[in-house]
């Protein structure tokens, strides 16, 4: 049997593991919640698969490096590598994860040209959408589809999770339609994401990665806002782990 390469992305919300073979084909993938003991979860995941080399990414990468003697790479390079593997023509990537978001521009050869990341707070990330969905009484899965059913979008001006929650509460108290509030919340996150993308890259195809890309309303609004083709992978949350696995093979 040929060599097998693993990539593990230890994010704030979930951990993903992808194993590829020497032809870059994905032969295994796993996902679970990060929980409160990410190293125990990561250990449980890698025990179930076999691989020759592993590369870690995500905010838990340094802890993993120490615990398991692995190579590490930043989420930025990992997402760039993973997204380019699936979509060879993309010029940029927007990755929105559990508690951060990044826009990455690529050179033609796939290397990172420039990137931007959100600062210290969770504004404009998966956590923001999760809290807003809960405030409006939607499940995370239904939040995007329900928002897409709205006929109008209500303007939400606060980007801060705490302020936006009070803004939403007061809209609910005014009797506003909750789908319209939901659409407004999605639009506010997209405004921020589009601003980030525009600062690093002005044209060409964009890959949308990270767990938030599973939300269909986000992809729709992003494409409307930017007027550029948006590619969403089948499992957008796995792109970081895929990129890390591919980089593990290339480091060999």
């Amino acid at each position, binding site marked *: 049997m040929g060599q097998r390469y693993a990539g593990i992305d230890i994010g704030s919300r979930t951990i993903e593991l992808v194993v590829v073979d020497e032809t870059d084909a994905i032969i295994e993938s796993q996902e679970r919640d990060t929980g409160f003991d990410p190293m125990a979860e990561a250990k449980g995941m890698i025990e179930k698969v076999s691989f020759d080399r592993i590369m870690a990414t995500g905010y838990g990468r340094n802890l993993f490096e120490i615990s398991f003697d692995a190579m590490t790479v*930043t*989420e930025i*390079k990992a997402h760039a590598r993973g997204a380019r593997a699936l979509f060879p023509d993309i010029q940029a990537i927007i990755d929105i994860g559990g508690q951060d978001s990044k826009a990455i521009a690529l050179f033609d050869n796939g290397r990172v040209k420039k*990137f931007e990341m959100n*600062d*210290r707070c969770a504004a404009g990330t998966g956590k923001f959408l999760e809290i807003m969905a809960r405030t409006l009484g939607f499940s995370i899965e239904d939040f995007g589809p329900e928002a897409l059913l709205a006929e109008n979008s209500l303007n939400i001006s606060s980007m801060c999770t705490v302020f936006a929650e009070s803004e939403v509460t007061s809209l609910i108290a005014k009797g506003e339609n909750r789908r319209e509030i939901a659409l407004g919340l999605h639009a506010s996150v997209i405004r921020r994401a589009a601003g980030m993308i525009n600062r690093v890259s002005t044209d060409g195809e964009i890959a949308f990665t990270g767990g938030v890309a599973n939300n269909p309303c986000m992809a729709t609004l992003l494409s409307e806002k930017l007027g550029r083709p948006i590619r969403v992978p089948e499992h957008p949350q796995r792109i970081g782990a895929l990129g890390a696995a591919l980089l593990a093979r290339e480091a060999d």
Partner: protein
Amino acid sequence: MSEDYRSMWTDLGLDLVAHDALLSVLGQGYQDIYLSQKNRPEGMAYFDFVMSEVHGLRIKELLDEKAAGRKIVGSFCVFVPEELVLAANATLVGLCSGADFATEDVERLLPRNTCALIKSSFGFKLGKVCPYLESADMIVGENTCDGKKKAYESLGGLVNNLYVMDLPQVKSANGKALLKAEYQRFKAALEDLTGVAITKESLKDAIHTVNAKRAAIHRLSALRKADPAPISGLDALLANQVFFYDNPARFTESVNKICDELEKRIAAKQGVFPAKTPRILVSGCPQAVPNWKLPMIVEAAGAVIVGEESCVGERGTRHLTDASGETVEQMLDAIVDRHFQVDCAIFTPNPDRLEHIQQMVADYHADGVIHYGLQFCQPYLMESMPVEKALEDRQIPCLRIETDYSMEDVGQLKTRIEAFVEQLK
């Protein structure tokens, strides 16, 4: 501390409990960040000693100077000319502004959205933990950014010896005339403080002393052009920071000694990191002791810092003062000429800085630039955008960082800086 300085600190009016806490954090930070580095030049032992005695022996020296009739002048800015201070038989020291302290008390006097450097200078006063400030016979404030100039209005209520120097904001003939008038006024104030008239002999001596200190730093900087880099960015920053505190002659001698050692290292192709390590120029706001956050992250991420385009760095030290003048008037003009070249972001427009950054990138063979901005520092944050654009137009990667002295964003910064280093590899 090798000696018990507690009675000295008590006499200076320090809050011993708070001061102990500060020293313990500082000592631990120095241990973790500095002493854990590998392949350090042996000559850095001098700076380790200086840092271990920064609130001890150095303060005792200053108090001994005072007892012998010298005066101590404290400053927050490179526009305060050390030449005039020395010539008037006084010693210039930089005042503490590199760590958060007594933040709650500070925010009763300054808005929250004031930069960390200004808040820090107030924190050290309000927390009674800066022996330099308490030893000073005169504290010089200077009208640089809006934050500082308005803050001095409040600082004036906390100390009884604040002197405020006005500064130009445009590099015009009028601007230069203002700087000259202010340096003349400062000269008179110093002479009044010390009772010593500045003579052409004392001023010439002072110019030579300060030039020698700057020349030693120039020599150190030039050695950082080598690959592998013979000294870490952390250690070179420390030398630039101690520039503001130490006895000038001893500092010059110690830096030159390190340079002798670095020359041998370079000849033997020895470095603090391997050859081809990504090389980074840091440009932007000053990094005062003990603000080592950025170089700590950069060098842990597998890059080396090869230069600082900063007031604590080349912006502050790169020009020498012409020492050829024969009269006090001529030498004062030379001091004005020298300081008028400092390309601080309070000047508008400020094209020299943009040019200097690019020159430094070329001279130090930097692979990329990290623009270091303190949150709420309007002048440098504003300039960071044209700086980034000018560099990127020339295919020089640039990462803009905006941060403060807290540690809460270290994880985020690590990811961004590691990704930037990956970009340079």
